[in-house]
């Protein structure tokens, strides 16, 4: 294993831990689908980054920030058109991104990821983002729990539910951004959703759920990395297939 690969793996593991933690709350908040769509909003940003020759993280980050604000506004309205609007955003983001990116090779990278070489600032950003997500969720967890149970009760407890939701979406975006590099825009949401879904099947208490979700997410990355190396497979898809394997196993456990 080269030094570069070790750094990449450390980065991926820290991103996975953050994804597992935020995934457990996204699952309870039932914002999984809106969140998954958000990862696709990174694609036009990646396209613009290619055209303007800037760092893909900057481009992806900019459109993710925009997407968070957009979904935040849509979530405040509880009409049926919200789902339709999210569907439109999803489809148009992928299409616009594909047109902007142009080259097939770069498009595949943007959609499915790959390690490539990671610069020192990228490494530092990735680690800082993952730590920030985990710390912020830890600090917000009490308000999130009350909000999950009843937004109305949260408001009566003087919790600003709108602001809390915005924070959550921004942290969700940051998690996607840190996973974008190695999973790609199509699969970055998977590491948030799949391990959390498996953990929910396996656990009964809140603490165990959050911990197991993070653990399965990290294990998906570690096993995905080892398998992709051994069989010369693409990393992103391999990680997601391993996570899906955990989910399948969790379904078996429930039936026993």
């Amino acid at each position, binding site marked *: 294993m080269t030094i570069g690969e070790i750094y990449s793996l450390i980065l991926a593991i820290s991103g996975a831990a953050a994804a597992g933690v935020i995934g457990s709350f996204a699952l*309870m908040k039932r914002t999984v689908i809106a969140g998954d769509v958000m990862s696709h909003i990174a694609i036009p940003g990646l396209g613009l980054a290619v055209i303007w020759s800037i760092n893909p993280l900057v481009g992806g980050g900019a459109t993710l920030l925009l997407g968070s604000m957009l979904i935040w506004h849509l979530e405040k309205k509880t009409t049926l058109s919200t789902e339709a609007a999210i569907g439109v955003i999803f489809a148009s983001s992928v299409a616009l991104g594909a047109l902007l990116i142009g080259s097939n090779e770069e498009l595949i990278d943007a959609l499915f990821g790959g390690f490539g070489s990671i610069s020192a600032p990228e490494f530092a950003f990735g680690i800082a983002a993952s730590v920030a997500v985990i710390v912020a969720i830890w600090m917000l*967890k009490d308000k999130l729990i009350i909000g*999950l149970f*009843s937004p109305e*009760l949260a408001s009566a407890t*003087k919790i600003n539910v709108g602001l809390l939701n915005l924070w959550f979406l921004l942290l969700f975006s940051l998690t996607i951004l840190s996973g974008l590099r190695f999973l790609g825009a199509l699969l970055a949401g998977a590491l948030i959703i799949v391990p959390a879904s498996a953990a*929910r099947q396996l656990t*009964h208490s809140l603490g165990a759920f959050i911990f197991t979700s993070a653990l399965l997410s990290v294990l998906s990355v570690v096993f995905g990395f080892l398998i992709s190396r051994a069989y010369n497979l693409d990393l992103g898809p391999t990680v997601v297939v391993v996570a899906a394997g955990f989910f399948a196993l969790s379904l078996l456990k429930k039936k026993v």
Partner: protein
Amino acid sequence: MFRFLGVENLTVSLDGEAVIKDLSFELNQGENLAIIGPNGSGKTVLLKTLLGLLPYQGEIKWAENVRLGYVPQKIDADRHLPITIQNLLSAKVRALGLPFSEVARAITSAGLTEKIQKTPVGHLSGGQFQRALIAFALLGHPNVLLLDEPTASIDEPGEAQIYELIHELQDKEDMTVILVSHDLSFVYRYATKVLCLNKINICFGAPEETLTPSVLENLYGGPRKYYHHIHNGNKHA
């Protein structure tokens, strides 16, 4: 007794339509106010406005030392949430920076057992769930408890127990209670004041004097069938 809450010319509009119009009433400390009225008459909206959750015109003046506790109408909690009563109560204690001993106190005060703390909220019975909501409201030592139809999802014996609990809390902790209810027998038994609401204030005062058959007919648009036989019910102190 001193004036604890004064509401003057209160108007609340939702989506441009007035749900409460020009409502005025006042309440003294330690009173038990029942808000009654048909569906859609603005009872829940009034409660939420008093809590400061909705924008309004007019005036709502609470006494300076007021601490509000709120028990909402039945919450459709996701039955699969892995959140226990303990998770929920601890979350509020931490979010508000209260001492942790508050959790045990609230659980006992709401008539719940220590054992039930570990039960996920989705697995509680209607009565237990309502008591859990009351325990949640009791954190932070409120001196006013606002309850929105606290017995809507409970069978009859459970209903009496919840009303008894509210009454007990009011006595022990010297609380003022504002309660939305469909149940006129409760109103006669415990309420010191009743507010009949149908967008506007239709009646306000002590139940025995205020709730005349004609007022009830006006409020509900027809005679209230169990009005007479509960009229003689003994009011608790």
